[in-house]
């Protein structure tokens, strides 16, 4: 094992180095990294599915989901400053640690491992995709020195939203009233049975997402319609209310 590990590190630090220099990514052939989980290059592509909510890499911060630096070996629900679902908190207090096995199970079907997780993701059914993704995530976990000195890969795009709109302070009482339109579909306790949870999102992400629907940049017809008639202040009010919901 130690040998495989050393080889792994070499592969990854190679890759990290090329990231740091901003070079076109070149990955060693799979054979050169015996013992690695999967193909991190493909994993980086798979990660695009995650990047709407999770950041990883240098400067990564918590957004809709917690940042994923150092996720391997971490206790579930333990990133400082991130408010987890009760289920994820419980997983942490039950001692669930993110290892290759637990992450693999979680990624295959998040709800199977943490039944009321707020993570709005149906899972990756293909084992190969999970392996590749885990190989990619591991790069940011081995030890802090392995985190590439590059921009976080997962900066949520703000679609060029006017900073004044982002800075608007919402009225939570109005937000509570407006939220009743959302709760016909989105469950207030953050459960997700086919429609994503929207409670406890960081306000900025909420505002960006709603404006993206309003401007029809995000594709969902119901959400385009609902957001379409909300004013900037109303979106801010909703963001304020949902972010504070317990």
């Amino acid at each position: 094992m130690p040998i495989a590990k050393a080889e792994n590190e070499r592969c990854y630090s190679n890759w990290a180095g090329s990231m740091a220099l901003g070079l076109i990514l070149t990955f060693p052939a799979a054979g050169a990294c015996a013992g690695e989980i999967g193909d991190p290059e493909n994993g980086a592509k798979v990660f695009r599915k995650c990047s709407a909510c999770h950041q990883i890499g240098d400067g990564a911060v918590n957004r809709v989901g917690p940042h994923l630096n150092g996720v391997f070996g971490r206790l579930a629900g333990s990133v400082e400053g991130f408010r987890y679902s009760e289920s994820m908190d419980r997983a942490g207090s039950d001692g669930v640690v993110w290892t290759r096995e637990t992450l693999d199970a979680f990624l295959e079907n998040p709800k199977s491992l943490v039944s009321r997780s707020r993570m709005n993701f149906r899972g990756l059914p293909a084992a190969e995709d999970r392996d590749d993704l885990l190989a990619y995530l591991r790069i940011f976990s081995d030890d802090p020195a392995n985190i590439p000195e590059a921009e976080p890969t997962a900066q949520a795009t703000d679609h060029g939203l006017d900073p004044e709109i982002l800075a608007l302070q919402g009225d939570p009482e109005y937000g509570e009233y407006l939220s009743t339109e959302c709760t016909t579909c989105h469950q207030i306790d953050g459960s997700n049975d086919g429609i994503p949870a929207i409670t406890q999102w960081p306000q900025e992400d909420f505002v960006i997402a709603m404006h993206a629907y309003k401007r029809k940049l995000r594709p969902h017809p119901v959400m385009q319609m609902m957001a379409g008639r909300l004013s900037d202040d109303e979106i801010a009010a909703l963001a304020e209310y949902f972010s504070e919901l317990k």
Partner: protein
Amino acid sequence: MKLDRRTFLGTATAATAALSAPMAFAAGHGKPNVVVVGGGAGGATAARYIAKDSAGEINVTLIEPSRAYYTCFFSNLYIGGFRNIDDIGHTYGTLASTGVNVLHDWAVGVDRDAKTVSLAGGGSVPYDKLILSPGIDFVDGAVEGWDMSAQNAMPHAYKAGSQTELLKSQIMAMPAGGTFAMVAPPNPYRCPPGPYERVSMVAHLLKAHNPTAKIIVADPKEKFSKMALFQEGWADHYGGMIDWIGSGFGGGEVSVDPSAMTLTIDGEVTKVDVCNVIPAMKAGQIAHSAGVTDGNWAPVNAADMSSKADADIYVLGDSSQQGDMPKSGFSANSQAKVCANAVRGALTGSKVFPAKFSNTCWSLIDTDNGVKVGATYEATEAKIAKVDGFISQTGESAEVRKATYEESEGWYAGITADMFG
């Protein structure tokens, strides 16, 4: 229906409240009283929101005869085999334990001068504001040969529960190659795509159990909700099984004979094995008794759902005549929240925000093949007026249709949590 400890305790509380009814009436102590008649999509939502948001400042009494509410929404999925009957049953225990006084009784009359509602079980309940959300009843004589006494021979299954179970068992008992007939209702009626989703679900069931069976639909209309989507789906999935006869071909000239099990369309008599008669509809009887109807429905003001006939009575959901919104559970739930905000404001001076309404109706055509239609609405002087809308497209990919179905499952969980807590 899931009976966990919490709902069980709540139901017990509700039952006790019903037995000791006079206690409930004396509970005034100067606090305003809101009485809600009907614990469905409109009524349960209104009661829950007023109780929750007024945090004890308002006494909320919900009058509902059934101890378990079976949602009409997803009842077609039960027929198709995608849900169990228990999955669509909900009790009032959580509502009771969050401060709603649940009375399992029928409201039989409204005295608008004394401001009381009388109950079938005796006694009456006083109100400051009365919210009626009794759903629908059927128009007498709408389908020649059918009345309520024929509902066992020819079920409507348009109020969910035992009627839905009866219809499904009749379909399962059809002889090989037998005929299922539906008499579809004229506009306006509850759930515009409902009869056609039902046809799809019956076809799905028959395709598996009785593939040579036939479906006939006699329809008094020329067009119906999501027509292109349903017809595309029927052709693709149930080719040749479904014969839809619109008004142009005599679909509106219908009579039935429940004892002979015949359906006559435009003079032509057909022997059928199952006949699902969905007659023309009107506001629930109590709205008529209260004198707030004009013709079949109860006209309301769009801004707060108050009756045009009485400022202290509000009418929600299917019974109301409000303008452009379809009669759906989603609409009733949406109207209930606008109404709850207005009623609370009127009684406690809390802030009243402008009305916003919306609706989306999902329908299932076949396994993982969902479609949807929706719109947003605003209150104008004259009515609830449509602002913007969308509809699924014909020819969508299987992936999109599957995602739409999964979304409908999410909506079901969402709206039932929003109604019952």
